[in-house]
Structures are given as structure tokens and as C-alpha cells.
């Protein structure tokens, strides 16, 4: 026990004095997530405000051929501007990205309209350009509305009720709660927490294995009258403490960021008060042991500090994989998912943020299975610490 505590406190002291470790544990991990989150949210708010009827410019070729259409478009907050010289130029301009969308009104538009044969207009857009998609959709919506208006007028002129053309009236009712809507964006939060807690222990995991070997301090350490199991346990526990500190800071910085973000503008009210912060901490706590032993295990196979860094950056990404798969397939939380570490924490956390009732069994399975995985990996670490190859 004394050996364990001696190693534990020495590793804490040693790493608290190491600026790089401190920076990654207490600054990089906890700050990276919230900052990135704030940027993304701000972008989405900008976009959302964009959608609300702002003025859009639409280059049109042959404006003089359809004066009524032009007036209609202007009434929908669309500014008509002069387009390229001809249809060929329009295609070029859209292809090159000069314009997102160009409308061409042929000379015989008026004639065709008068003859009540479908009057042709051309709408140039680039389907591969996702940026222009919004403008194109708006132009098309406006044209369709004009189309419907004309159809209605024609029917009325012939004494037919225009409502005949609308056998069905679609009313869209969105049942997602404000908290529920937040969950989509806030779903990525759980990964930021896992990222932060892994970052917090990354340098310790490297230092206690590859680093100690590279420095030449491992061999004298192993020649001391102590058992190696106690050494590795002390090191893993010190790693856990740094990871826990990193996680707490990350949770708190998210809490602060969410307080100041204008999320109501996006119709979101995430349930992320201090009580949820505390609950999230205890939910993620078992993942710390798993992360610490996993990183120590991976680092112990590497030959040098550099190599360990490379491999551990892969470990940082690994927990996203199950989250990504479930997000893409939009699967609902299921019992068997709770056996998968990182995924179970993610799903439960999303429910917490959505303010949905929590499933006690799910939480119990998540905590237990993650702890069991962590204990197994720790045991493997201790076993590997016994081998001669450890000295490299």
C-alpha cells in the first residue's frame, strides 16, 4: 500500500510540475470542446437568421419578357439584378461559382403564357454546390408560388374553384421539445467530454511507460524491492486523477458556455444545470479507469515517446466510432448498447440533456460494464509490466 501511495503522489507532483502535461490536461481538453461548440452554435444561429426572409439577389436574363413575374419576385424580397449576357454565360457563371442561381426568361415567355401552353423558364444552378442550395430552393419556391397563383387566376376566370387543385392540405406539426432539439447539437458534447478526459491523462500514460523507459529511469525503478503491480497501479491511479480533473473542468466550462450562448434563438433549452453536471461526472467516472488503462496499455507497447504520442492520438478517436455509427443510423438507446463503453455514456448523457426520464437499468449496466472493461485492461497492464521486453 505504501509503495502504491508513494508512486501515486510522486507521479502527481512530477506531472503537476510538467507544463506540457498541465496544459493538455487542464487547458487543451477542457477548452477545446466548448470553444468549438460555441463556434458551431454561432454559425447555426447566423444561418437560422439568414433564412428568415432576408433580401436575396437573383440575376435574371430577359427581365423585360416577364414584368409581372419580376414584380412578383420582388414582392417576395428577391432583388432582381442583371444577369450574364446569354444562357451560355449563365451556365458559366453558375459553374464558376460567380452566381449560385440564374433565371433565364426566353423571349416567347409572354406569348406562351397568353396561349396557355406551359411557358418555359430556365433556372440554372449547381446541384454539387451545397452553398447555393439554399438560394436555389428559395428561387424555386418563389417560382412555384407564382405558378400556383397564375393557375388559380386561370381557374377562377373559367368559373372553377382554385381549391380543387388542393385536395390535401398538409399541416406540419413538430413535436420535438426545445430540449429535444438541443440534443441533436448537444449530442456531440459527450464526445468532447470523453476527449477532454482522455487528453487529461494522455501525457501521464506516455510518461509512465514509454517516457520512463526513454529517460532511463525505468530500469533503476524496477531494480527496487517493490512489486511491479504496485508500481503500475500507482501510475494508473495518478493518471485517473488528472483525467478526473480534466473532466470536471470540461463539464464546468461547458456549463459556463451554455449559460452565455443565445440558444433560445435556435429554439433550444438544454437541460444542463449544475445537477446534470454532477450527474454527468459520475456517469463518466467509470470511463476514466478504462481510458487510463487503455492508454497505458497502448503506450507500453511503443518504443519511444514520439511513437506513443502517435498511437495515443488514435486512441483519442476510438471512442467516437460507436457514437458515430449510432448517430448515423439514428438508433434509439437499447439495452445491448449499454454494454459498449463510450456509447452507453453518450446515449445516457443525451437523454439527460433532453430532460427525458432515465432508465436505471441502463445506467447500472453502463457503469458496471465500463468498470469491468477498465479492470480487465488494468490487469492486462499489470501483467505486461512483468515482461522483460518492457525495458525495450
Amino acid at each position, binding site marked *: 500500500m505504501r509503495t502504491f501511495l*508513494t508512486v501515486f503522489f510522486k507521479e502527481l507532483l*512530477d506531472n503537476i*510540475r510538467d507544463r506540457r502535461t498541465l496544459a493538455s490536461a487542464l487547458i487543451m481538453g477542457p477548452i477545446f470542446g466548448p470553444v468549438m461548440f460555441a463556434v458551431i452554435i454561432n454559425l447555426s444561429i447566423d444561418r437560422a437568421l439568414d433564412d428568415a426572409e432576408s433580401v436575396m439577389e437573383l440575376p435574371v436574363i430577359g427581365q423585360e419578357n416577364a414584368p409581372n413575374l419580376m414584380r412578383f419576385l420582388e414582392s417576395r424580397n428577391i432583388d432582381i439584378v442583371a444577369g450574364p449576357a446569354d444562357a451560355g454565360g449563365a451556365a458559366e457563371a453558375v459553374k464558376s461559382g460567380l452566381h449560385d442561381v440564374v433565371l433565364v426568361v426566353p423571349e416567347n415567355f409572354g406569348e406562351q403564357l397568353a396561349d396557355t401552353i406551359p411557358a418555359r423558364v430556365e433556372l440554372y444552378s449547381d446541384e454539387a454546390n451545397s452553398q447555393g442550395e439554399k438560394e436555389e430552393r428559395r428561387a424555386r419556391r418563389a417560382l412555384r408560388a407564382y405558378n400556383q397563383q397564375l393557375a388559380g387566376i386561370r381557374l377562377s376566370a373559367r368559373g372553377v374553384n382554385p381549391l380543387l387543385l388542393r385536395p390535401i392540405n398538409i399541416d406540419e406539426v413538430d413535436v420535438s421539445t426545445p430540449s429535444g432539439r438541443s440534443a441533436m447539437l448537444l449530442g456531440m458534447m459527450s464526445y468532447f467530454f470523453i476527449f477532454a478526459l482522455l487528453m487529461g491523462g494522455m501525457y501521464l500514460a506516455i510518461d509512465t511507460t514509454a517516457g520512463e523507459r526513454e529517460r*532511463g529511469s525505468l*530500469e*533503476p525503478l524496477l*531494480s527496487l524491492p517493490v512489486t511491479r503491480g504496485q508500481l503500475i497501479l500507482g501510475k494508473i491511479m495518478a493518471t485517473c486523477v488528472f483525467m478526473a480533473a480534466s473532466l470536471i473542468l470540461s463539464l464546468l466550462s461547458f456549463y459556463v458556455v451554455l449559460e452565455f450562448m443565445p440558444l433560445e434563438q435556435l429554439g433550444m433549452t438544454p437541460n444542463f444545470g449544475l445537477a446534470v453536471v454532477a450527474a454527468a461526472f459520475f456517469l463518466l467516472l467509470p470511463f476514466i479507469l478504462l481510458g487510463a488503462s487503455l492508454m497505458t496499455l497502448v503506450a507500453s507497447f511503443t518504443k519511444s515517446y514520439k511513437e506513443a504520442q502517435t498511437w495515443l492520438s488514435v486512441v483519442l478517436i476510438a471512442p467516437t466510432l460507436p457514437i458515430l455509427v449510432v448517430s448515423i443510423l439514428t438508433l434509439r438507446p437499447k439495452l445491448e448498447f449499454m454494454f459498449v463503453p463510450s456509447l452507453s455514456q453518450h446515449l445516457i448523457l443525451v437523454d439527460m440533456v433532453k430532460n427525458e426520464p432515465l432508465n436505471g437499468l441502463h445506467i447500472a449496466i453502463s457503469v458496471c460494464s465500463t468498470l469491468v472493461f477498465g479492470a480487465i485492461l488494468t490487469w492486462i497492464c499489470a501483467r505486461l509490466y512483468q515482461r522483460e521486453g518492457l525495458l525495450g
Partner: protein
Amino acid sequence: MIKVDGIHKSFGKVRALRGVSFDAPDGKITGLLGPNGAGKSTTLRVLYTVLKPDVGSASIDGADVVTDSLSARQKIGALPHGAGLYPHLTARENIAYYANLCGIDKSEVDDRVAAIIRLLEIEEFSDRRTKGFSQGQRTKVSLARALVHDPQNVILDEPTNGLDVMATRSLRRLILKLKDAGRCILFSSHVMQEVAALCDDICIIASGQVAIDGSVDSIRERTGQDDLEEAFVAAIQMVGGE
């Protein structure tokens, strides 16, 4: 008292040790001498229990290095080749860390650390962080932490490597002090003169085998060479055929 009895050790296809046997008695300095790659470090690593011999056995004051490795380690202070310190800890903290790991009574740790710092004459830089220490300073601190639990047997792997004349001389004085205190000292070197100047017994290793061992005089006698360097070369050639 260190006993080595016919140890073999291979790393893959490389046969590093092919039956090394010798004794290092208490109150004497035993030098393990040999060219680079002869198997000196491997032998010492077996003795401080980080490697296990494939065949043969070794013991420290009767404690087998394989079956009773914990108590074997309790009886030795080891200075591995190129031993590193923790750069963010001071010299004193580095030494205290080892003192605690060796199980020295908590109330005594500070006194013991202070005593070993005095003994090795490193007071001047003992409270500085070891980052940026010179090779000589590093070796002295490494030695201090290896000796802090007052081991009966001291194993030093090429301790004078990279040391200047003054540092080498003070290290020599320290080794002689340990000898006078009745300790068993085993140290390796590839420098003939150093071994000759310090050791009571010499064990010359070449190609993973003991070429010759005994007192300095008996080696001169058995190789028929008056000059020790010539004796060294002659001894190595005895096994060099392989």
C-alpha cells in the same frame, strides 16, 4: 556476497551469455571487465532481477534472483547503465522517492536522504530540479538514490562513463569507502586502467563467457603477461575463437 552460477541468456538468436560464473565476496571490489557487447550489462541486469536467466542461477546473500527476487532486490543497490532521473523533481526528491519505495521508515526518510547527500558531497545542488544536470551530477544523484537504503551489495554498470577526472576520482573514493564498510561491490567497465586501479578481483568477460577471473596478480601470472593490458588482450583471445 554475490554468486553467479552458469547463467545463459539469449535474445532471439543472439546468445548474450553462455555460462557465466563468478563470485563477488563482501569487503572486496570485483570488476567485471570486457569489451563492448561482451555481456557485462546483461549479467548485471540478471543480478538486479530485470532479466531472468534461461539456464543457471544467481543469488544475492543467498536470495535467488529468480525465485526470491523481491528479497534479492532488497539486498542490492543498483546503478544501471545510463540511469535517468525525474527532471521535474529535485535531487533530494528523487532520492527520497527511492527511500520511500525501499520501505525506509517514514520518520527516518529525511535523515537518511540528508546523510547520503552528505556522503556523496552533493549538497550544493541537492535542492535543484535535476533537469539540466551535468552527467557527473546525474551519476552522483543516481548513485545516492541507489545507496539510500544502505544495501549490503552494490552493483554499478559502467559508473564512470562520461565522467570527468574529478568526478571519477570522487566516485573512486566513494567506492573505496563502501569497501572499507565491508560491502560487496561489483562494477563493470571496459576501461582496463580503471579496473586495475580499483579492484581486488577481476572477472574478464568476452563473447558471453568468463575468459579468466581472480586477483590482479593471479591474472598476470596465468596469462604470462606482466602488463595488465596485455593480460586482458591475451585473456580475451582465449575465448575469442568463437
